[in-house]
Each structure stands twice: as C-alpha cells, then as structure tokens.
C-alpha cells in the first residue's frame, strides 16, 4: 500500500514537472510581450512593472500583421475548403469503384504523403503556366500537398457508409453529382470538418511553402512576417513576443473551438483496427 502511494506521488510529480516545462515558455512569452525594452531584454518570468498594451499596436503596424493575417487566412481557408471538397469527391470514387486501376491510383496518391516537394521544379512549372509569384500558386501548392492525407482520412470514413445508400439513391434517379452532394456529403460531415480544421491549422503553420513561393512581402503569411520581423527586431524581444502571441491566437482559437473534431481525427487511424 505504501509503495503504491509513493508511486502515485511520483507520477503526480512527473506530470506536474512536465506541465510546468510546457507552460513556462508560454508564460514567458505572455508576460514579456507587455514589458518595456529593457525589462524584456532580461527575458525573465517576473510580472511586468507596467502593462504596455501599446507593444501590440506597434507590432500590428510595424510587422505588417494585417496583411499577413489576411494572406494567412486566405491561404488557409481557401486551400483547406477547396482541398477537402475535391478530396472528398475523389475519395468517394476511389473507395466505391473497386477496380485494380483505382487501387493503384489510391496507393500512388498515398505515396505522395511521404515525398518531399521539390520547389525548384515546382517553380518552373508555375512559371510555365503563369502562376509563379501569385497567391493562386501558393494556394494550389497547398491544396496538392494536402491531397494524400485528406484522401486517406476521408477514404477510411467512406468505407463505413453502406453501399445500399448509394444504390437506393441511384434507383430513385439520382445522378453522380446529386448522389454525392445531397446524400454522401452530409454523411461525411464529421470527417470533413475534422480534415478541414487539421488542414487549416497545417497551412497556417506551414513556413516552407510560402518561403519558397512568395518573392514579394505582399504575399507573406503571418508566419513569414513574424520571421522577418524577428530578424529586424532581435533586440526588441517585447515586440517579437507580442507578434508571436498575435500569430498564435488564430490557430489556438481554431483548436479550442474544434478540439473534439481535431483529436478524433488525429486518433482515427490508430484505433481503426
């Protein structure tokens, strides 16, 4: 009994220590974003002497955050929405048409999950079709990057919808599009929301794609704007931290709103069996 008690206390101790290690950096960022330059340069955890909310105003203006935010939102929202709908349609067909060819195509698409993007060749293709250095190009790159994951996750869900539903709809005279958009898509809603949220957060966090594909600062998402701002402001940690808070706020909000869907989506693959 005593041994059990000691083990329990040890476990609690480990959990508390780890939680502190996880929380401390966030706390550091939070308190330091309100400090004066000299105070923030000490980078410690003390409470600010006075709360300088003006840091945030400076950052929004100097860091081009409004433009960054609208770019990030455009990239994340449009590519996640379009990508998820396209992939849902593809996953439906791939999983329903059980020919050898569709199986091959399915595994070819899944391979895309592992392969790195070769940005030099991608840029050449974009040059060729005239969308290099445009927001459209960035969005298309993001959409193509999410296809393997989306088709895999949505495809697993399609399997759980009985084929009898399709048959009944077809007998009642529904064509392919009607069948998908009126009957199948509402049934897929939970997994579509999950993949949308995951991809939204993924695009918001992505740094490499816009780094390669955007040559002008007008196209920068928040991520790139923060990185650039960090390069200019290495001695002004209070601004850097305020910038970090503003950049994280949207993803954290999306996470807390959609927490239920996100966790279920992450773990769906691991409990399938």
């Amino acid at each position, binding site marked *: 009994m005593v041994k059990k008690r000691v083990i*329990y206390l040890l*476990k*609690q101790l*480990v*959990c508390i220590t*780890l*939680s502190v*290690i*996880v*929380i*401390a*950096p*966030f706390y*550091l960022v939070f308190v330091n974003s309100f400090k004066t330059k000299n105070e923030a*340069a*000490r*980078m*410690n*955890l003390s409470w600010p002497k006075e709360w300088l909310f003006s840091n945030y105003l400076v950052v929004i203006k100097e860091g081009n955050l409004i433009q960054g935010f609208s770019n990030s939102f455009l990239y994340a929202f449009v590519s996640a929405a379009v990508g998820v709908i396209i992939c849902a349609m593809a996953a439906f067909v791939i999983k329903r048409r059980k020919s050898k060819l569709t199986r091959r195509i399915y*595994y070819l698409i*899944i*391979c895309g*999950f*592992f*392969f*790195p993007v*070769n*940005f*030099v*060749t991608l*840029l050449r293709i974009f*040059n060729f079709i005239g969308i290099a250095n445009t927001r459209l190009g960035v969005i298309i790159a993001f959409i193509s990057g999410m296809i393997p994951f989306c088709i895999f996750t949505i495809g697993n869900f399609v399997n759980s919808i009985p084929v009898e539903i399709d048959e009944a709809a077809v007998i009642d005279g529904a064509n392919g599009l009607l069948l998908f958009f009126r009957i199948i898509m509402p049934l897929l809603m939970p997994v579509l929301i999950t993949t949308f949220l995951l991809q939204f*957060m993924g695009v*918001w*966090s*992505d*740094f*490499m794609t816009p*780094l*390669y594909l955007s040559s002008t600062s007008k196209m920068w998402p928040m*991520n790139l704007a*923060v*990185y650039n701002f*960090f390069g200019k402001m290495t001695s002004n940690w209070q601004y*850097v*931290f305020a910038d*970090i808070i503003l*950049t*994280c706020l949207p*993803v*954290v909000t999306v*996470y807390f709103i959609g927490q239920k869907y996100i*966790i279920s989506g*992450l*773990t769906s*693959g*691991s*409990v*399938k*069996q």
Partner: protein
Amino acid sequence: MQDINFIGFDNYIEIFTSNKNYAQGIINTLKFTVISNIIKITSALFLAVMLQKEIKGRNIYRSILYIPSILPFLIIGIIFKSILNYNNGLLNTVLDALHLGFLKQQWLSDLNVVWKAIYGVDAWRGIGYVMTIFLAGLNTIPNSYYEAAEIDGANFLQKLWHVTLPMMTGAITINLVFGITYGLKVFDIIYVLTNGGPGHATEVITTYSYTLFANGKYGMATALNTILFVITALIGIMIVKYMSKMEVQQ
C-alpha cells in the same frame, strides 16, 4: 531560371565528393529521423501508459502536453531562441537558480550540445502529439486483459511488453509513419534555431537545399532534393506495401 545546361551527374558527384559536407547533411537527416523518433516515441509511450490509469487531473495534463503541437514550428523556434540564449535565457537562468550552474551551455553555438538542444525542442513540441495517438490506442485495450495478466503474476514491464505493445500496433504504425516522414523532411525548426550552424554542424538536406536555392544554385538544390526524394520514396513504398498488406488481411 531560364537557361538550363545539362551536365549529367556532375551535381551528384559534387554532393558526395566535395568538401562542402553535403554528405554530412544527408547523414544528419537520417540521424535526426532516428534519434528524434526514439526519444519521442519511448517517452510518449511511458507518459501515455501513466496518464491512462487513474491519476488525478489526467485530462488537464493531457491537454497541457498536447498544446505545443498545435503551434507553428517557426514560432516555437523563435521562443526557444530566447530560452536557450546563453546570457539571460530562461534555461540557463533556471539552472543557475537551482544551483546547477555547471550544466549551463552555449546551447545553440556549442558543437557538443547543439543537437541535444534541437532534440529537446523537437521533443518539447512533439511528445504531446505522439502521446495523444498512443492514448487513443490504449483506450481500445479491454481492462480484462490486464486483469488476466495480473492474475498470472505479470509485473509492470511484462504487462507493457506482452499486453500493451502487441495491442497497439495500429497506434505505433501511425506514429512511426508520421514521425519518419516528419523527420526526413524536417526544416522549420532547424532553419530557425541554428540555420545549419555552428558552421555546418546541424545542416540537413532541406536546409542545404534552401540555401542553395536562395543563392541561385537551382541545379544543386534540385539534386539534393532528388536524393531526399529517393530516400523517402524507398521508405514510403515499403510502408505503403505494408499498409496494403494489412488492408488485404482485413
């Protein structure tokens, strides 16, 4: 980017023979993939086992440990650049306060510890994610299996080895697949924390490739990326083959 001259395999020959350490970048990529995954998967497995059983506040601990993985790597890199600062970074300050001053290091510029710092930051972000997937796998194991094992006199490690691990192949596969693909393509965190430095000690394929791209050496950048492609393709095809076999069995 208009003129292309084909030079055969010259770029590849340069990668493996020049004194610019490109080959070291390839080795670093593989090293990072293996070590970071071993750290994250083993510690996340123990945490998941610990947090699955009755422990007060486990839901709060789970949420807290998961939070870092929703943030962009870039942001985490910047935050840790501050924390790992030698003079007044949080880590060295805390070590001082705990009278552990002898552990203080130039975390991001000392050749001997820079990789440890990168693995640390990577684990700080990634463990919660791996753990969440393990927890989902653990929840599918019926409690009666453990009770049966206990009646047979199994201790903690025996239960872990003979009951938990075999029942969690799904979760382990997912974690390995995500972990390996992430590790081979790692870029953001190294680019922000060290940008390949000190010297070229922490350079990986993607950081080399980006530097070459930024300097206009498109051919070399593509060659390096192609090598990364071949490595991931080999590993990816093995995994996909394995997955399609599993699907047939179902």
